[in-house]
């Protein structure tokens, strides 16, 4: 059998590219730390950069709850996108025989999701002004 047709063999070049890409990024970092000028330290140089002011408080400050909300909504909608892909691929094949089924099922799915979207919208999850 032609190896380039086998499912698993197709991923071998991806793996090879991954190895090359990782080696490239690791190699450049290693080369620069070998070739580069030796770092000289001083107390001022070691402080966090804040435009010349001395840093106050922790580096990693607390952040707005909004960011967590966005992350949660992302997971919801991204899963929806993943569900849509197989539907999209099979759509053309099925539209002739069972148009109601293939269109209706996804339209129903989208309506449910859109209700959820409206809920999040009305709750102010996308409101960044206040």
């Amino acid at each position: 059998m032609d190896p380039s047709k086998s499912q698993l063999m197709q991923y071998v070049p991806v793996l090879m590219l991954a190895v090359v890409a990782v080696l490239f990024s690791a190699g450049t970092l290693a080369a620069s730390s070998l070739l580069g000028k030796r770092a000289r330290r001083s107390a001022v140089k070691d402080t966090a950069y804040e435009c010349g002011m001395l840093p106050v408080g922790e580096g990693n400050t607390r952040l707005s709850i909004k960011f967590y909300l966005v992350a949660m909504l992302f997971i919801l909608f991204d899963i929806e996108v993943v569900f849509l892909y197989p539907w999209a691929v099979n759509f053309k094949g099925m539209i002739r025989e069972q148009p109601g089924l293939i269109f209706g099922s996804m339209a129903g799915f989208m309506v449910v999701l859109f209700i959820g979207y409206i809920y999040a919208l009305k709750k102010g999850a996308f409101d960044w002004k206040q």
Partner: protein
Amino acid sequence: MAWFHNLSATEQFLLVSAIKIVCVFCVVMPAVAYSVLAERKISAMIQDRLGPNRVGPGGLWQPLADGVKTFLKEDFVPAHVRKAYFWLAPMVSMTPALLVLAVIPFGSNLGGEPMVIADLNVGILYTFGIVSLGVYGIVLAGYASNSKYPFLGGIRSSAQMISYEIAMGMSVIPVFLIVGDLNLSKVIEYQYQHGWLILYAPLSFVIFVIAAFAETNRLPFDLPESEQELVGGYHTEYSSMKFALFFMGEYANMIAASAMMVTLFLGGWTLPVAGLNRPAESIPMGLAQMVIFMAKVAVLMGLFIWVRWMWPRFRYDQLMDLGWRRFLPLALANILATALWLWMVA
């Protein structure tokens, strides 16, 4: 060539793949370096300056000089950072950008050998999977720096990138409704048979382009590193080659995004003239198609650069508003409209 035919089919496949990977690398790396120069030259033209013109004729060797310079710079790791992540972040931001290129068909074939590193049947899913990894580099950099500006930059960018990933993922669904396959070679096959997909799904193209700007952190959406507010954003604490890797990662990402746009919407390596609209039958034709692909990518890179120097930056609430309130419903409506249209046609 006798020794080549003596190898087993698997060995031939591996050898040819290795050659393709090396060639792609040898094209992409100079392309990254020279798009930086192009950016500097075009910005200079737009702002009525000269731009780099000292190294070589018209500044042609500037990328080389920059490369040597960044290698020789003081390799400084501040004491307050989280060391392991600080080293890991630049690598994590560079690697995914290169991995995306695996599934892009950059030509039809050369002597019967398909010009794509890995012709995966889930091409686009692979691309989105890898593109999502890009956010880790920036978040890690922000977290590892243990300093306020990078932290804010990292957090901002994570929210921005995941928001626009949804719009991007949805915007391409009409393409797959029309083509009926996730394999990028099949997408191109459809395009040389029926015409470029930008004609069938113009709204998808617009959303995809804008989302690509947000995903690559380019102006008008460069909130993660907005200089006036965050100094350098997530890479404020970085120097020497570690900084350069972030920089190269950004440009490699732009090249990958342009290549995706060309493949999905602009016909890939095809051109509807002079018999270039079908898989090549001779080696010169195959080479010509690769040149066409690269020319299309170069035009889109020009667009990325042009937009950067023409547009002001969005405010953060405007950015989120555009992603969630405009693009998400618009992309959903686009999917339904395309599905309805296909139903009518069938």
